[in-house]
């Protein structure tokens, strides 16, 4: 059964050219000033493999990695041969122009600050 699907996969994938993606394990935090921090685990991905885009109210992060190729035989395999992708829906209060990201040791960190006027402000009472 696997063989049938695998052998026909070449023909169908050639047509659709769909990439294989896996969802990265992610932690989302919010700090006291309201800004968000997304930490997504993408082992094997370096800066060049990262693609981040904002479309309407969606934040899309994609991480591509080169798979270790050995001329040996595979004894045991758990690492998924797929790239990473995740889509987040953005709150209207996030300032898209100031979204920043960096990747270190396979962990992508995206900071999403809030737009200035949305931050909690204290209003002093006159008189």
């Amino acid at each position, binding site marked *: 059964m696997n063989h049938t699907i695998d052998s026909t996969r070449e023909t169908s994938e050639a047509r659709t050219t769909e990439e294989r993606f896996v969802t990265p*394990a992610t932690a989302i935090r919010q700090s006291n000033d309201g800004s968000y921090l997304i930490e997504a685990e993408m082992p094997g991905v370096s800066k060049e493999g990262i693609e981040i885009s904002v479309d309407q109210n969606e934040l899309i992060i994609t991480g591509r*990695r080169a798979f270790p190729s050995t001329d040996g035989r595979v*004894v045991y395999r758990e*690492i998924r041969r797929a790239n990473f992708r995740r889509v987040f829906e953005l709150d209207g209060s996030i300032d898209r122009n100031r979204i920043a990201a960096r990747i270190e040791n396979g962990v992508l960190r995206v900071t999403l600050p809030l737009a200035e006027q949305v931050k909690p402000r204290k209003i002093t009472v006159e008189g």
Partner: protein
Amino acid sequence: MKLIRYPETLVSNWTPFDQLASIRDDFNRLFESGFAPLFREARMLGGWAPALDVHEENDALVVIAELPGMKKEEIDISLHKGLLTISGERKEETPSDEGKFHRNERFYGKFSRTVSLPAEVDANGVTASYRDGLLTVRLPKSEEAKPKQITVGEN
């Protein structure tokens, strides 16, 4: 009575296997979103267990482990009686005054994985490197373990 032959571009071939492929993709998605968290939970009983690959080349064994967000010093590699153990502890990198969690799928804390090596290795020649969150351990095979060509003699 004429037999009309349609050029390839007008009529696209219907291949039933296209649908099989999309069913397969749906299954993948199901396993990823639905079962993946369960799978992790099962591993949690023994602690966090990073994914690893073991490859065998002619001259060496190569073990690759996914260990994102670690420092080299936090990773321990030991070899004993044909068993390779990769262990360590992952601390939270950002201090918790970074804010409260909305969602956390990442594991922290101690982890340990042991694999039984399929060939004898030379412990003195073992090297390891950590890059982009991937740990690669290269274990050269001992002389006896390397594949040998045996020539057939005349008599």
